[in-house]
């Protein structure tokens, strides 16, 4: 048991070291969180477009989703069909614990740095 834990720990830290979070990846991750159970290619694309105001390519979204899955920040399962999709089932994504941790960590780093910007916090 001990061995397995330590293995996971090493694996995790290595992961964290090598696989950071890119800006677009972060947006996608956030969108997946917002969408909860309905996160798949198009909905994520639309969500990111809605918030960021920029036009995004479907391919970019897919690549990012699968990359995040490879990194262990997302997990996926096959979802149901709709009329429009014929028999092509959706792959629904949801965030993993690691992903959540990563998001929080990124947020914390930013928050910390924000505090030290004198222009933004004149009283400090």
């Amino acid at each position: 048991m001990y061995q397995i834990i330590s293995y996971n720990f090493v694996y995790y830290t290595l992961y964290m070291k090598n696989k950071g979070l890119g800006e677009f990846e972060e947006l996608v991750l956030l969108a997946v969180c917002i969408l909860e159970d309905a996160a798949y290619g198009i909905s994520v694309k639309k969500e990111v477009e809605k918030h960021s105001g920029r036009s995004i390519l479907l391919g970019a979204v897919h690549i990012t989703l699968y990359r995040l899955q490879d990194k262990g920040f997302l997990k996926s399962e096959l979802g149901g069909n709709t009329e429009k999709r014929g028999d092509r089932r959706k792959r629904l994504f949801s965030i993993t614990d690691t992903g959540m941790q990563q998001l929080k960590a990124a947020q914390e780093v930013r928050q910390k740095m924000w505090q030290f910007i004198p222009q933004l916090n004149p009283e400090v």
Partner: protein
Amino acid sequence: MNKPPKIFLKFFRWFCHPRLKKPIEGDLMELYEERIVENGKKNADLKFIRDVLLLFRPSIIKPADGTYRINNYGMLRNYFITSIRFIKREKLFSLMNIIGLSLGIGCALVIYKILEHETSFDKHHKNYERIFRVVNEFDQTEHGTVYFAGQPHALAEGLRNDFGIKAAMSYYEKNGLIVIDDGAGNKKRFQEKEGLAFVQPEFLELFDFEWISGDPSTALSGQGKVILTSSIAQKYYGLPEKEVHLATGKSLTLENEKTLYVSAVIKDLPSTSDFPFTSIFHYQDQDATNRYFYEGKSWQEYNSNTNCFVLLDEASSDTRLEDQMKEYLIKYQPEDMASLMELKLQPLSEMHSSSTVTRNYRGETVSDNKLIALGVVGLFMIITACINFVNLSTAQAVKRSKEVGVRKSLGGNKVQLVTQFLSETLLITTISAIAGLFVAQLLSSQIENIFGYDISLNLFSGFESLKILMVIVLAVALTSGMYPAFILSRMNPILAVKNSLNVKQTSGFLSLRRALVVFQFAISQILIIGILVLNMQMDYFLTKDLGFNDDSIIVVKLPDSTTEKLQVMKNNLLANPHIEKVSYSTSGPLASWKVNNPIFHPQITEENPSGNLKNIDEEYIALYELDLIAGENFTSGDPEDQAIVNRMTTKLIGFDNPVDALGESFQYGRSGRKYIIKGVVEDFHAGSLRREMDYVVLANQKWNIYQAAIKFNTDQTSLNDIKDLLDYTEKQWSAVYPDNVFDFEFYDEQLAAMYDKEQRISEVFKIIVAIAIIIGCLGLYGLISFMTNQKTKEIGIRKVMGASVLNIWNIFSKEMVTLLLIAFIIAAPVAYYAMNSWLDNYAYRIELTPTVFVISILVSLVIALVTISYRSIRASKANPVLSLRDE
């Protein structure tokens, strides 16, 4: 239901990673449906296509691995790995292959670059197609039609007025004294050796320059203005490159006569310009340096440095002006002169590479034939390198036979094997091409030194060069890879695995291999003969008795020839005991610059004989050790209508015995004066040995005195003594000409420099010969290793029977010598013909002696034997047990 464009959907399904296929396709379809509702089908289709195309990216395309391989990827990878392993295992063989190919490719690249350079001259002018140079066609019945580009000063103005076209004169002067006064009384003097141009303002409308400062339309609007190039402005005014525009408005003095103001600064002219200008003056300002300017109004003064350019409305095919100009000169010239020649138009594109008008401001032109010859040499280099590769690769065939056998028995077919060996060749060629780039870099720096121009071998600057490199790589890989690939793939698998190549099976290609080696040998022998002849001719040029002495003499230019100044300088110079003689004259006995005019005498039978006039003083004949065979030397105070001529001239006017010609008078020049023959000297070379000797007239007039010749005492041999003497001479010279720059040359060096062109050709030749020999040796080595591989058993048996190393070495050498002799039989006549026709360019030339050919065959024999000895001795020293055991 609406369907998206089928072909793109199919494309998507084909390339997409199976893991992603369904969800993404679903997304695509969903979006498509939505878009149809929003924007209509057409828009949705377009967006669908866009999405599909943008999805075609590495992380979505299915990997070419595992179960989803793209066709033969795995096999190709295996070929690649095998090739790498083979290269690693056969290090020497691969190294030789790569060296040979990279030398060939490097050479070809450099030659390509030279050709590109030579053919891109003056193309940067936007009027390139429409600019023409007016040249003269001079019909000499004796020597055929001759062309020259020198024109009278008034021609352009005449053409402008009479035909209403744009025309401009230009005059180019190599030598000029420029003085810069910094205002505080300090004067900097520059004796320029090139780059002074005098052009009419219209010239700037015809040709393009890149202006840094100043206005093209007013830069030469009047006299007293000068345009400088960036680098010369930096030199004159000590400005950093970024501030050259500050030179505008500054002044300079030309030949201590005219002070001019810089009106504009232009960028340096590109290296591919036949106008090597550094400073451009107004045409009328040339009276400061050109004594024969006559205010630019003359219609009769011809000078090869005075050219006329016109701009036509349409490109090259326009011959209307040429027709109009046919009878044009008669309007301005006396009839007998005007009838001599006809005006023709030469397109700017031919100015650099014309074989008829052989001069431009840069110097001599290159003829198209020479460029073609160069291209052929480049091709030859590549071909020999390919031959080499073929030889070396087939030599390895025996070693590869087991591999081929195994591949074949496992079901590999012929096409696959050919593909394998071709891809291997491609790999080796690519490596060689990269190495070839380094070779080319090395070579080009050599060539740049020799030719003095920048061929800027930056392959990565232009897509063009990279394309050429790729074409070369593919062509070489295909031509040199085909043959070995077919040989190898043709092998019988059973025999191949047994490692016993049937002699019958290979005899055909053995003879081809021999033919290839003979071909290579022949090429290197032709080249060796070529370089030998070239060097012998150069030697002949430099050592031939010219009929006068050129040793221990320095020549110094004279800014002016005031009799008093010359006398003062002479007295001061002769005061030094180590200075033997001082003579003032037009030029030395042999000079590149000449005054030529026809000689008239009632007894002359030759048509238009042209005589070379030099004004000399009484010391001249003694200083240059000319041989006075009749009459007397000049003495000071002689009347100016006397002349000393050479023996040829006395023959010309009908006297076989020179003594009989004394006292005879002849006319020199169309409207020139008469001279009485006072003395006769033995014939000497007044021009380069490329040409026949000239008729020479030596007169003692006081004009046209341009140069002082100073002879040092010959026992002054140490370098320091000579330096002291030069310093002394400079001091005396500067005392008389304080406003000029002392500029001297050793006379023998000046003469040697006349054969600069030949010297440079021989330098380039040496490089080519060296490379050709190296490549040839590699090919030879390939052949010999093939033979030793073939004869391993034979050698073993011979050794068991008691043959010595020498005996075995003999077997191989005998064959090589035979091949060499066959090659020689091919090479000798080709080389004889080629070198003979080259030597025919020269009036004074060596005869081709058998020695040259003997030397060439000896040299190639030695090289060949050295090359094969290493391999054959190693083969003959091998333990016979090892070679015989393998059964």
